[in-house]
């Protein structure tokens, strides 16, 4: 019969229409922004800079190595290295970014900066409602706007953040152990020449070297 195929198709749409009243499976949309679907943990959109502790400037993990700036495919990162150094989480003096800008309007959320960062300093955020009236300044984030605490990272990507923290703690433990061993060796060396009353500058040299390590 001519038109049978059309009727069959219409039966299918009718089934879906009627079904949407009784089955949540057939009702596929939500009324954004009043309703929101649960966020997916792996979601990423724009990068942010992680800091530890309360002070964003002191706790920033970034050491301005500029690897992300070089690797960024659309070249949306701009970094200026500091002149002086500040201690990082293991207490080693490091440079910090005097300027760290990301142009969100250029960023394509590819996550390559996160992958190449050796210091776990840059991570992907999930904030997507970023519309602004100022399309130049409003979308150019400086380091203050980019800095977010580690707690925020834990909130948006709990599994990943826990792994990162474990890795950093391990590194810190290693560094601490190394520093302790170095300090002990320095103390022992400092003590040894004192007993034998050797020449002063011979004892001072290894101690200085140990503290530098």
């Amino acid at each position: 019969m001519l038109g049978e195929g059309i009727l069959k198709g219409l039966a299918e749409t009718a089934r879906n229409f009627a079904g949407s009243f009784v089955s949540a499976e057939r009702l596929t949309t939500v009324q954004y922004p009043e309703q929101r679907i649960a966020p997916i943990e792996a979601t990423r959109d724009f990068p942010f800079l992680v800091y530890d502790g309360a002070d964003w400037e002191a706790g920033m993990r970034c050491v301005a190595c500029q690897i992300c700036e070089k690797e960024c495919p659309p070249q949306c990162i701009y970094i200026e290295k500091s002149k002086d150094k500040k201690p990082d989480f293991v207490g080693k003096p490091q440079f910090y970014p005097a300027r760290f800008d990301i142009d969100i309007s250029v960023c394509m959320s590819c996550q390559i900066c996160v992958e190449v960062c050796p210091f776990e300093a840059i991570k992907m955020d999930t904030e997507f409602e970023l519309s602004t009236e100022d399309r130049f300044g409003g979308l150019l984030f400086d380091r203050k706007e980019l800095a977010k605490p580690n707690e925020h990272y834990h909130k948006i990507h709990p599994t990943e953040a826990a792994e990162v923290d474990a890795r950093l703690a391990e590194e810190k433990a290693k560094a601490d152990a190394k520093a302790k061993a170095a300090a002990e060796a320095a103390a022992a060396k400092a003590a040894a020449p004192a007993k034998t009353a050797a020449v002063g500058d011979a004892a001072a040299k290894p101690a200085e070297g140990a503290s530098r390590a």
Partner: protein
Amino acid sequence: MREGWNRPPVMKPDGEGELLEVAMGPHHPSTHGVFRMDVALDGERVIRLKPVFGYLHRNHEKIAEGMSYLGSMPFTDRLDYLCPLTNNWAYALAVEKLTGQEVPERAEYLRVILGELTRVQNHASSIGFLIQEMGASGTPLMYAFKAREKILDLFEELTGARMMCNYMRFGGCRVDASAAWLDATRKVVAGLPGFVDEFERLLRTNEILMARTQGVGILRPELAVNAGVTGPMLRASGVNYDIRKVGGYGVYNRFKFRVPLGDHWDVYDRYMIRMLEMRESIKILEQALKDIPGGPVMDAKAKLRGFRPKPGEAYGRIESPKGELGFYLISDGGPNPYRYRVRPPSLINLTILEDMCLGQNVADVVLIFGSVDIILGEVDR
């Protein structure tokens, strides 16, 4: 009116009277992108059709020659933006061939799973778009997107993004799939046959669809082979050529699946081939999800950045949902490719558009164009 133009009018073949020249595009709704067809019409009949490419040219190949191998990976997502993961795969395959890297087995299985999920969602939306162009505004496309949405959610859960996945790396995949993700995928795959059945019931025997598509836009197998057409287009013309079978990339030789072929070579065949390929893809998915082994997903020796492949060349090709997608790379030993070339299936499948459209009606041009299944991001790069 015509004085300012330097072109003479296109005359009818018998020399009596002018033909009507119409520029379909670059913003014609059927192109879902920017693409122009210069059509010369005799009444409703197409006498000449000239495709005009390049409105979406983004200089992908030259940009890739100026940046590291890794840096081009996210840009490949943006070629055929409906199937980012197959693009990633083809590019990763080319670089792996260049550097001689091995891919762990689990990563190969994950690639197959993601590639076939991509194929299902691409074919579903492609059919949706084709029917949309026929005038069924919305409904079939929304049905297709309902299934696509579930697959994109899986992509997001694994890779972090729905469309711009940037997931595959040289020597494996970026992150491992959790057991929860594999379970979720099994659940989605279990629901897919139901979706394909529903989608087929919606349209397959529809008289309007059959009247509009059967016998329209015939592509002869000889012409298809000569023009280098690949993918569902070629198989709808009855040529048995599927790189998953003949190319031997990945672990496809471990799975049982058939290659559907058309024997009328028309638009309806192309529609049906995509339907059948979805079913075959589901079969592959079921097998891959059953056999997926454990282990790492990344080659331990693989370097993310700063590697320099030995001088040489490599061509990595896969059966992307649209046809043969290939990446041709030449290395001169530096950190960037010396030459980077994409073989886009969409562009090459589009070159025979005129041959399919000659003598057809204007309204059929839209349909034939839709049946080629192109993404302008890949055509123009």
